[in-house]
């Protein structure tokens, strides 16, 4: 195992600990959007999919591993669905939360 791989493992552990710390502060009120938001982030694997798909060869040049590349397309579509669907749905949910005071100003604003 090279030094950089050791560093990568360290990044994994540290970010897990930091994430744990931060997420512990999220109130249970928001646990559903938190979960779908985290779900969107898990689509970060798109980065790996893009790099791995591109590495199957260069378009227009010989030696492209087409079977691998088509699997790569599937992976990109799935990961993108995960990312975009996840963030969009989280946004939809979060916008539904209104506080009482905000509601009141809205209402009085409408009446005036």
């Amino acid at each position, binding site marked *: 195992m090279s030094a950089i791989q050791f560093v*990568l493992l360290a990044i994994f552990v540290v*970010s897990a600990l930091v994430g744990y710390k931060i997420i512990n502060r999220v109130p249970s009120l928001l646990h*559903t959007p938190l979960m779908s938001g985290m779900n969107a*982030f898990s689509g970060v*694997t798109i980065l790996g999919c893009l790099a791995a798909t591109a*590495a199957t060869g260069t378009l227009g040049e010989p030696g492209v591993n087409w079977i691998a590349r088509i699997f790569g397309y599937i992976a990109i579509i799935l990961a993108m*669905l995960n990312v975009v669907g996840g963030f969009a749905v989280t946004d939809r*949910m979060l916008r539904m939360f*209104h506080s009482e005071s905000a509601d009141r100003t809205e209402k009085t604003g409408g009446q005036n």
Partner: protein
Amino acid sequence: MLNSLISVAVMAQSSTVNIIPNMDPDKQIPYLVLAGLLAITVLIGISMMSKVNRAVAGNLLGSVSMALAIALTLWAFDIFSVIDLWVAMLIGTILGLIISRKVTMLQMPQMVGLLNGFGGGASMIAGALTLINPGGEDPFSLITSGLAIYVGSLTLTGSIVAAGKLHQVFTQKPIVLKGHQFWTISTALLGFVSAILFVHPAFASGAAKIFLIMLSAIISGAFGIIFSIRVGGADMPITISLLNSFSGVAGGIAGLAISDPLLVAVGGIVGASGLLLTQIMCRAMNRKLADILLGKTSTPTMKKAAQGATEVKQADDAEIELADEDAQETPIAPVAKEDPHLDWLMEARRVIIVPGYGMALSQAQEQVKQLMLLLESQGAKVDFAIHPVAGRMPGHMNVLLAEVDIPYDKLCEMDDINDQFKDADLAIIIGANDVVNPAANTAEGTPIYGMPILSVEDTKHLIIMNFDRQPGYAGVDNPLYDESADKVALLLGDAKASLEKIFAQLADR
């Protein structure tokens, strides 16, 4: 001349690194710096999600960071102009936007489950491609690629089964195979071993490698199916949350395989958050994670607990089916002539409403809001008590109630509101059972013993709207149902119909 050459070589060695295979060494340092910055903005975005008023912005920051991360990756690997990658991304984006518009709040648990599965599937393929592509033949890359296939594949199949159960494509009841425990453990171990086996020289190339990739994916996928088909309806939130963690871990491992620090960092964060939510839910349900993982659904203990009940009923599951089929026809049980609960409603000054999944099933949120407005128009103070495991995923009730514009300041966590029940005039329980069952405090040896519950029994009057008198998922009879009619009014039947009836009766007065 030689001197300058040496110094250039030294400089080159110190300023350019070759960490990431397939990436131009000159771009690696800027890439790492920018990736580090994006990891920080992701963390800031997530931490903004701890406050409701900043959560929308936090989510936006997260999604922008993700878009930048994609752009950065395309730039760093010199693949910005590779058209087919963009086409694939566009297709995924359009599909993602379509399903995010179509999904209802009630369907959110299965939506999250399904998307999770997609992420896992993508990580699995990324791992497989990394093995097939040239470069990265060191043991570390080989093992991490193998593990990405393992975790990715089990996340994919496990999530699809979980989402299918929640969507009622498959039965919600736990499916137990012959020797289930054996199959769970052996597929788990074999999947893991096959992932590690990629370091063996026999699988270094060609057909043997492809064969092992497929074998590994199939065994791990079988493990995902076997472990999730055994989970019953009410344990599904825990499974979904655990699979969420897995999908993060799968991404992180894929990041280790291709040496991508950003992927590793975000994968670690997601993995940790899923695990934390899983822990919170386990605590709230008084279940051990290991029991759920090994498929020990509460069935064995339930038999002991149900004593009186003729057959241990997967009450929750049955209730779901019944509610769906007969919701409209079920007559509301006749209530006592005087309908004391109408007086309670009229007179109460302090009311706490306890919603459960039954409310969601009968889609009574709008009626619940009307009830709240009605009580408030009489000057009563109304709050909602939300148990951590009410609904089908953590925080599900809050989203359902927010959808009908109930202000979130009224949605109280269990610990914040539990000591207010004794000062309240009236608690209205709508489609919740186990989370208010006082047997959790007293009935030793039952699955819910020790589970923290909402102390509704401290309140002066209770109105309980439940579908039937059957015990809840845990199979423990609820003593509240047998309380005297002076304290408890039991309105059996569909929650929406019960509420409509109350409104009609009050209007007649």
